[in-house]
């Protein structure tokens, strides 16, 4: 018997469009044509205006050497050009910033969209802290890549080309000198780049690990304190930041010496021009005014070249982030559910039956967790899954939720493969009460509706009433609209919230995982009562790790295999 996954794979052999950083950028650029055009116009204006002042200066100095007073017009023009090029540069910077923000926005949107298409295994295999760091830190480096990297480099590149052109016109000799030295500088820059890339990569990784260590400490603080492992935790954190420190130190060194070297080279060229001009060689023949202007130009060539050096650093440091973002966007995606399946259709065609037929499943390839699991939960029936620890009870649930597809056999809900049911339909089919309740950012009402527009205030209230939470919620400062916070609820009340969340959309099937394992408070009775109410008229599948007294009509199913369920 072939599983859902094998059959779907064939159906989905058509390649899906893979996103990458480059495609996101392309889209952003074509979406914001005006902004892109404006940006280019501003850069062109700033470059052109920046070329003119030394020409005015040349004229002034040449007049002076000829013993003539400077014209007032020329002085004003000089100032006007300096000022205008400054303003254009400012405009250019604003446009670049806005542009960079558009790109990061588009990129984060694309990454967020990717989350939805990732298989469940991705989330269990990756720390949420480091995935968050992809979204936050790595995308920020992409912003730097554009604002202070690529676009800046483009502008500076234009500036260099403009300056070289003017210099060639003024002094062909100097132009040749510059052309000869630029490859040398470029080679040096590359050497710096490669050294820095390695350091930056190490630093980013260390930063992500350090970032993950903080929420982990918060989560485990009781354990840390009770074992007196504060110093141990500090040492671990220190290890991470120390790695980052050393990597930063390396790139700082390159950063510190690069620009001084470039400036020294530029001075060498100025000195050479002066010596040649003094010697009066053909290519270097020029007036004093031209010499002054040319000196100003040389300084100007190396200015943008120096910035290009910095921009290269920014690009380098972003390269690591870009690579990780592309890796993330290229992560293998899950198989798309079948959009034709709707809860209404399924329930109309078949009663709320859950069926496992000779199900086989393993997380890796070597250790099957489930082997030949077969059982049916009939509509309205309560079935309890029992079995040795690690026997695969929770795994059976994950298959039923469609988070994973079985490698053999079938898992069906109302006759349809569980993994083929679209996410949006699941809530109308089954509610889940997990081991731990996940508090979401929002109001108390949002905890129950989980932002579902289909679950209105009336349904929220009814779910809360069933869970026996209505009164406690009304006692809160703003009732259902009170912003939710962990400390508002006891452990038991969180369980009740989980029950309310599970039944809010009135599904015919209820999945209960280990419901009283963590419960040790005055609300256990209320939890049991709520569960009883929630189970009424529903097909219930429940995981129990301990001995229990099944009520009449409740069936126990032993889940077991010789293998562990390490995943």
């Amino acid at each position: 018997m072939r599983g859902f996954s094998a059959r779907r794979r064939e159906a989905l052999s058509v390649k899906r469009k893979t996103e990458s950083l480059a495609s996101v950028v392309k889209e952003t650029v074509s979406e914001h044509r005006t902004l892109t055009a404006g940006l280019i116009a501003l850069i062109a204006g700033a470059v052109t205006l920046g070329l003119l002042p030394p020409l005015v200066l040349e004229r002034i100095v040449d007049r002076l050497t000829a013993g003539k007073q400077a014209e007032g017009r020329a002085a004003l023009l000089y100032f006007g050009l300096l000022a205008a090029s400054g303003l254009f540069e400012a405009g250019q910077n604003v446009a670049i910033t806005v542009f960079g923000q558009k790109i990061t926005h588009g990129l984060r949107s694309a990454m967020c969209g990717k989350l939805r298409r990732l298989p469940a295994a991705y989330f269990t295999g990756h720390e949420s802290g480091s995935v968050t760091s992809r979204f936050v830190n790595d995308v920020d480096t992409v912003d730097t890549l554009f604002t202070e990297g690529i676009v800046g480099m483009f502008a500076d590149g234009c500036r260099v080309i403009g300056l070289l052109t003017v210099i060639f016109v003024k002094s062909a000799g100097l132009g040749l000198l510059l052309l000869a030295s630029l490859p040398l500088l470029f080679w040096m820059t590359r050497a710096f780049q490669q050294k820095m890339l390695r350091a930056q990569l190490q630093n980013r990784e260390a930063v992500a690990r350090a970032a993950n260590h903080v929420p982990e400490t918060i989560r485990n603080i009781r354990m840390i304190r009770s074992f007196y492992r504060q110093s141990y935790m500090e040492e671990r954190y220190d290890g991470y930041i120390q790695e980052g420190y050393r990597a930063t130190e390396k790139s700082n060194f390159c950063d510190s010496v690069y620009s001084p070297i470039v400036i020294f080279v530029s001075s060498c060229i100025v000195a050479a021009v002066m010596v040649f001009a003094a010697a009066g060689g053909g290519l270097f023949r020029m007036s004093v005014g031209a010499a002054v202007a040319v000196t100003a130009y040389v300084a100007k060539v190396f200015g943008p070249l120096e910035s290009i050096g910095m921009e290269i650093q920014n690009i380098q440091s972003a390269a690591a982030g870009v690579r990780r973002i592309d890796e993330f966007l290229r992560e293998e995606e899950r198989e798309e559910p079948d959009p034709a399946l709707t809860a209404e259709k399924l329930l109309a065609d078949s009663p709320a039956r859950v069926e496992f037929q000779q199900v086989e499943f393993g997380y890796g390839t070597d250790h099957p967790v489930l082997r030949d699991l077969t059982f049916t939960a009939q509509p309205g029936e309560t079935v309890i899954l029992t079995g040795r620890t690690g026997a695969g009870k929770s795994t059976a649930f994950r298959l039923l939720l469609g988070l994973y597809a079985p490698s053999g056999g079938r898992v069906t809900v109302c006759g349809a493969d569980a993994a083929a049911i679209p996410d949006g339909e699941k809530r109308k089919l089954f509610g889940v009460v997990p081991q731990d309740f996940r508090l979401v950012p929002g109001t108390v009402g949002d905890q129950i509706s989980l932002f579902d527009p289909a679950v209105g205030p009336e349904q929220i209230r009814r779910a809360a009433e069933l869970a026996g939470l209505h009164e406690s919620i009304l006692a809160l400062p703003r009732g259902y609209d009170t912003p939710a916070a962990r400390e508002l609820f006891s452990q038991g009340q969180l369980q009740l919230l989980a029950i309310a969340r599970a039944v809010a959309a009135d599904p015919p099937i209820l999945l209960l995982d280990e419901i009283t394992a963590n419960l040790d408070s005055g609300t256990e009775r209320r939890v049991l009562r709520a569960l009883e109410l929630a189970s009424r008229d529903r097909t219930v599948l429940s995981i129990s790790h301990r001995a229990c007294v099944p009520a009449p009509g409740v069936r126990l199913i032993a889940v077991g295999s010789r293998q562990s369920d390490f995943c």
Partner: protein
Amino acid sequence: MSGRPAGGVEHPEQLRSYFKMEWAPLTLVTVSGLLYNAGLTAGPYFEGQMAQRLFDILKGARAPASMAPLAGMYLLTILVVQAMRSVKRFYVRRFANDTARAMRRMLYNSLVHKSRAQLRRESVGAVMTRAVSDVDACAEGMRKFTTEVFDTGVALAAYLTMLFVYDWRLALLSCMFTPAAYLIASHLKTTVTRYGAAYKKSAGELSDATLDRVAGALTYRVYGREPDRDRAYEARLSDYERKAAAANLWENTMQPIYNFISLAGVVPLIWLGAKNVLGTGWKTWDIAAFTTFLACFIKLAAKSSSAAKLFNAVQRAQVSWSRIRPFMQPYEEPDTATELDFAHPGTLRVSHLSFAYPGGPEILRDVSFAVRPGEIAGVTGPVASGKSTLGRVFLCESPYRGNVRIGERELSSLSEYERSRLVSYLGHQPELMSDTLAENIRLGKSGDIAPYLRAACLEREAAEMPDGADTFAGSGGIRLSGGQQARTALCRTLYNAGAVLVLDDPFSAVDRGTARELLQNLRELSKDRAVLLISHRLELFPLLDQVLWMENGSCTASTHGELLEKNPAYARLFRAQEGGAERETKN
């Protein structure tokens, strides 16, 4: 300046302390910075001299060969100046790197010494953002401040001196626009700060939203809510985009405007400077003087506009610092001083213990019992009878009344270190870390974990993992099953066990057979330990040395047999579970 400092930063709540701590790199920065900035004027000076020399040569007043020595002098000076510059650049970066590291250490030290209750009041995402991005922004601000002190302060002084030497009246006249730039910059700084703060806040919110979206992905998926969450995330992104653009606009565009204002002085400079050259002005200049003066002035104007950059950098650092500062507390050193003999701790005696959470009702009332080393006492009772609270009393997270003595010492009088050596607590949450299975058990100690893996019934499963016990357990142990997580936590407690073991529901996620095995192993490992086993599963209680029956916060210390006879509630509970067990075996 590498390696871990012996202690922390003194007065970590003052920014000054971080400058003080970094006196060595800062001294280097000062020396090289002064030399570099003083030497900055050398460039324009020599370039002016060379232009003049060229003029003379073209006129025939000097030999063409006279240019070379001048050019050589020029190069030598630039070389020294730029060497100074790279020293300054490197050490100012090292200063920032050191500072960021010290601040992170202090932040983390303060974090790890906070209690669970204190941490619960913090939003995880916000703390994370604070720790990572604020420290960077703050150290970066301090770096820029230090850089600008030289690049702006010293360089300005050097350029100004140069100008005044050449022609003080013209210097005054051309520089009179600069103060206006300063005035505007200082006026606008509150606006810059306001937009900067709004941007930071939005960044924090975005970070929180991202963490929620990722960490809650499967919850949202199972409920089909991913599209909604993506829309909400999109709204966050738009907010962030707007605030970031506004903040950057204010921060980046002011500078060219200051520059514009400062540069206005160039008009009188050229006009009057030309007169000087022609001999009709205040001073008599040559071409060299004219070009040097002009070049210095333009550099001066550019520098003075970066005074605004200085304000901005400082502002940004202040915004970040104001959010880091509340967490900056004196460094807490580990205190492992003790006179206790951990090898012979003695009997656990609890007498007349009463307990209430701060501001809450009394949960434990006059509880008394004793557990000798080698004994295992089961603690049970109906729901909300206070059994878990009794376990948590041993953590001393809140004060209790009455006595809890281990040997002769009162628990509350012990240091945190002593307590950690004497009492080992296992709670409901496994509290695992992103590390290997073995490291989660050892927690930095060295030693063989195999016997403890065996004791926690983990040995076989660990051996089957890809890298054995050195297999990565995932974030929070997520790659382990719930049962494996619980047994890893148990194993950790056994490995680090003190004289008193307090185990709250250690067998909740294991079946009956495993529970029996675990108890047997526990007994073997606890020959000289007093064990409190809190559970509402009673099937193993007949095997325990005594049973503490909790009801409404009071405790009856007895044995299984006696309770079965005399306590109807206990008997009922036990029999109900026994029945369940029989039925389970039948299935």
